[in-house]
């Protein structure tokens, strides 16, 4: 490999689109949670004050939570903020640390990709039989699709992180070689 190997930076437009998408997803999650709080309070208040039940509110709240968790999982993967015992990682030198982190992302990518395929198959079956929720007749394929989106997105992000980790590893290797007399 040539010594003057230069790792190409990701295209500026792609980076910009990714940042805008992540920003929009964060704002969406916050808004969704505020909406869930308001629906939850309205449901309880209507029940006690006016003896009126908001039919299907519980279902919508649960489906909203599942979507929130699955979209949140993609964002947490992007930020690399999953709960982990990072005792070992924090004690490693930079290059082994990059390698170990790549391994973690690889584990996530494989597991999430497999889960995404299984979720897609299940969501497809639900769509075929046209299953709906009990209270408001909400199409269940929409609720189940949250797992398809969440796991597929997480697998994709983890795969990108494996590749970028590999690139970083190669560039740090060349930087070290260049410093040698």
């Amino acid at each position, binding site marked *: 490999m040539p010594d003057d190997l230069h790792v190409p930076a990701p295209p500026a437009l792609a980076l910009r689109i990714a940042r805008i998408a992540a920003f929009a997803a964060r704002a969406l999650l916050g*808004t969704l949670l*505020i909406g869930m709080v*308001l629906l*939850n309070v309205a449901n309880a208040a209507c029940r006690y004050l006016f003896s009126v039940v908001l039919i299907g509110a519980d279902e919508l709240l649960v489906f909203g939570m599942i979507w929130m968790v699955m979209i*949140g999982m993609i964002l947490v993967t992007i930020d690399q903020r999953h709960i982990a015992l*990072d005792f070992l990682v924090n004690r490693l030198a930079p290059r082994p640390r990059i390698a170990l982190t790549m391994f*973690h992302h690889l584990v996530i990518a*494989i*597991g999430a990709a497999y889960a995404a395929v299984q979720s897609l198959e299940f969501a497809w079956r639900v769509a075929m039989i046209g299953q709906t929720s009990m209270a408001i007749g909400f199409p269940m394929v929409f609720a189940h699709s949250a*797992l398809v989106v969440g796991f597929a997105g997480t697998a994709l992000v983890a795969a990108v992180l494996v590749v970028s980790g590999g690139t970083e590893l190669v560039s740090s290797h060349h930087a070290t070689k260049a410093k040698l007399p």
Partner: protein
Amino acid sequence: MIWTLAVLPIALLLLGTPIFGIFLIGAVATFVLFLSVPPVALHQIMFGGMENYALLAVPFFIFAGELMSGSGIARRLIVWVLALIGRIPGSLGVATVGACTLIGAISGASTATVAVVGKTLYPGLIRDGYGVRFASGLLSSSGSIDIVIPPSIAMILFGMAAEQSVAKLFAAGVLPGLLIAFMMSAYVVIMALRMRIPTRGKFDFAQLRAATWDAGPALLMPVFVLAGIYLGWFSPTEAGGFACLYAILVGRYVYREMSWSDVLEAATQAAIITAQILIIVATAALFSWILTINGVPQAMTGGLTSLNLPPWGFLMSVNVILLIVGCFLDPTSAIIVLTPLFMPLVRALGIDPIHFGIIMTVNIAIGMFTPPFGLNIFVAQSVLGVPLDTIYRGVLPFAVVQIAALLIITYWPGLSLYLTAAL
């Protein structure tokens, strides 16, 4: 199968792989290599693990905690506790324990409590001469009281996993939580006298009155939440929603310290933390299901039954197992995976499930600050900027105090069950 359900997960855990990834890859490997069940079951179990109305309390109470720290509510509660405690030896140390307990009555997240109280009180603790080791140990361990004092995310998860009433668990946690706070405070007073910490100011009724007036709306928040649950106005899940709305209204219109963009930011942060926790719930539910269909709970029950342990012996074994597990596993995973394993034996031995839930919760709380992997330790390290080794040594005496409290809670069921009798 032991490779995919035990060796692989433990190896990945020690290598620092994200917890949800460990459960997921362990389950996937078991499905691919050993199970004859259709793999779409993987989706059904994870979806079912999250499709639970009671779980909605998790994002709501996390959001309430985020709002509390951003709206000035937490700061006013800390000032009020300081004014209340006044001139006793180690008043600032005792105020740290008191503030964590009071904030725990609103928030459901121990790590957030360590961050909020740590940022506010740590400089004062150092100024008063407690020393870095003692102060960081005190803050890391006091934050864990939050898990035992209702509302508690650990109790919500236990209630879901063991099919027990969350309201009863909340009621059962009050006295054990206060016992831990009392024992921690007593230890702080003794150590303050030994370290010759100067007593801060004196008790001033006018100051307390002013602090109470200022903190009034904040102090009413836990009263409103807990009274609402026990007077039957709303369920624990709905209480979480009301707590959020209350915090928004107080922070926005009473204290005027919160803009709408701050509210959105707090909601976003809460949603991200919720995702971190509930994805573990979903994958741990899957892992736990695989353990169950492979007869692990039955084997464990059979093994423990063959030992002919009396209930007290079983509870002692559970405490030892959970204290060890708590050092390595986060609370969510520990509860979701271990509760279904223990519950058959709990029922067989005639132990009250609510009492057992409190024992599990206290164990998990201790695990939050015990080395090497207690989450509170890492939060304290990040917020206080103290080396890990120093915090490790600092938390040890507090771990001994809390284990003593755990033994009292374990062998005195009445302490946990007294308030549940009224429900």
